[in-house]
């Protein structure tokens, strides 16, 4: 439960309310897997669960993309190079990268807002081990063009063979010639083989529910769909009880769940 304190190596402002902090961790207790998270502690503010958004091939480089929305994440936006951050982790379950590689199926990534951050390690890994994976389709929605994360990388990713990146925003702005609308519009228009696709979904719960609906309508089995859940977390080790989601502790059994295991629960209000 004791954090290890690490100085920030790089603080990169992504958008008006989002920052990426990179920490060089000399002694991680375990290499992280794509989809896992760390508990980050800011001196004087407290601790928050933040997904790891860096490349799994570099287990010592912990990248965290953080949107400032709460008592801990707002002050984290002001963190600078050299500031010491407390880190506990990695915690939680991972995206099914091995299964995707073994099955040779295509990967369909559906990201809403900050939900792209926990999926970035998947993209890094697929691009690095390109021949082991099928096609990679990234559908990403943000509120406005200014809220799109990793804009340079988005442009680079779509240059790779077998990679499709499609973007949409809720509200356009000057200079935006792309699509305006919700991510399910992108999903409806996307071309993929439902039987040969594994979908990884991360975003607001309502967005994930609609995506699951549309994926089911397209004929993708919920057993081939994975969601990353968010709940209040204090301990990240299954002791504090805060992240309970019916039978699950999201910190320990999640955050990544196969959709068939949680879809019935997602429909119940205030569970």
């Amino acid at each position, binding site marked *: 439960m004791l954090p290890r304190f690490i100085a920030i190596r790089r603080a990169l402002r992504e958008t008006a309310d989002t920052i990426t902090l990179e920490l060089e961790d000399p002694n991680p207790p375990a290499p992280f897997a794509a989809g896992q998270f760390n508990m980050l502690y800011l001196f004087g503010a407290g601790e928050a669960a933040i997904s790891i958004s860096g490349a799994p091939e570099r287990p010592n480089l912990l990248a965290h993309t953080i949107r400032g929305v709460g008592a801990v994440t707002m002050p984290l936006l002001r963190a600078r190079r050299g500031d010491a951050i407390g880190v506990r982790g990695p915690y939680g379950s991972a995206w099914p990268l091995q299964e995707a590689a073994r099955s040779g199926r295509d990967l369909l990534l559906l990201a809403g807002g900050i939900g792209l951050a926990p999926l970035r390690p998947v993209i890094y890994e697929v691009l690095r081990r390109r021949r082991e994976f099928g096609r990679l389709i990234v559908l990403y929605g943000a509120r406005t063009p200014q809220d799109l994360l990793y804009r340079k990388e988005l442009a680079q990713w779509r240059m790779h063979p077998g990679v499709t990146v499609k973007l949409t925003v809720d509200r356009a702005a000057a200079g935006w010639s792309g699509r305006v609308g919700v991510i399910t519009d992108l999903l409806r228009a996307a071309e993929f083989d439902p039987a040969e696709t594994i979908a990884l979904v991360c975003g607001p719960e309502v967005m994930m529910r609609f995506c699951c609906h549309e994926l089911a309508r397209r004929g993708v089995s919920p057993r081939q769909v994975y969601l990353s859940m968010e*709940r209040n977390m204090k301990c990240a080790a299954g*002791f504090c009880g805060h992240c309970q989601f*019916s039978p699950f502790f999201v910190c320990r059994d999640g955050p990544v769940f196969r959709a068939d295991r949680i879809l019935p629960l997602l429909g*119940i209000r205030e569970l």
Partner: protein
Amino acid sequence: METPSPEIAPQSSLIDCGGLDALIGALSAEGYTVIGPTLGDGAIVYDEIRSAVQLPAGWTETQSPGAYQLARRGDGALFGYAVGPHSWKKLLHAPVLRLWRAQRHHDGSITAQTDPPPPLRYAFIGVRSCDLHAIGIQDRVLIGGQYRDPHYAARRGGVFIVAVNCIVAGGTCFCVSMNTGPRVRRGYDLALTELIDGERHEFLVETGSTRGAAILNRIPKRPAADSDRQSASQATERAASQMGRQLDTGGIKELLLNNLEHPRWDDVAARCLACGNCTMVCPTCFCTTVEDHTDLAAGAAERIRSWDSCYTMDFSHLHGGSVRASIKSRYRQWLTHKMATWFDQFGTSGCVGCGRWITWCPVGIDLTEEVAAIRSGRRDDNG
């Protein structure tokens, strides 16, 4: 010739009140901090004791939904009551605990350290079967899984348990329904059954461990006869027949999880104050929160962990609001966790039938009644 109870080992012993006092003394001499039932705050609570004189001789209590009252017994029994507001979790799973301290140095670096575990070894006197099961359940939660809580482990390790078989049941007890009592079966070092009638006041002692036997060897005792074993067995059976409440646990997990939208949840929500009393008195509730305290001038920070309750609005807070904003959803979380999803998480019920939840609910909500209401009007709408 009398037939001894097959449940009680033939090598059991008898001690008297002096022997019990000697047992407490022997445990103290061994370096244990001895905790036992004693009168305090108008109730029978668990606190440090140094002598059997501090046990609540001649006291009992009446319990009913939302009510607890101390009462005099007609005799001098030391364990003639059920359970009060305290449970042993206050000693094993500390209500407030510093997880770590951190210091920020001049160069901006930060170091952190945990406090050493308390140099205590506990001996618990008077652990009832329901509470012994509760300790076993918290063991599974806090030290039985992938992660171990080192703070709980430090307090739990080496606890010497003197269990007591109940000779009376409380008005809200239902351990028989939960199959958790009233007779203790395992997990103790010594187990006592109080034998009191007329002239006689003794304790039948069963040993559950080698260290229990070793301590017992150092205090005055005599071998128990078959008739003593039978008396002890009858006393516990009497308690079993007096349960103040009962709960039909057949298919309870499916019953609750298939009726998450049952109208009874609205009904109970209209009565529940969301005060969290039930979670505080429950011997298995384990939820905690943390607070970070920082002295920016001194560059010092600490993290304090304390018991939390799923009845608070903050408990499920995410940016944008609480997942469980209504009292209905928070009550449902508590009851379904305790009685249903606990099985998925820990392979056991989270309820031991101690009745505290019913007694200490300020509006007297009785979970046995709530479950029965859902059962009688089951809809199985989300199976």
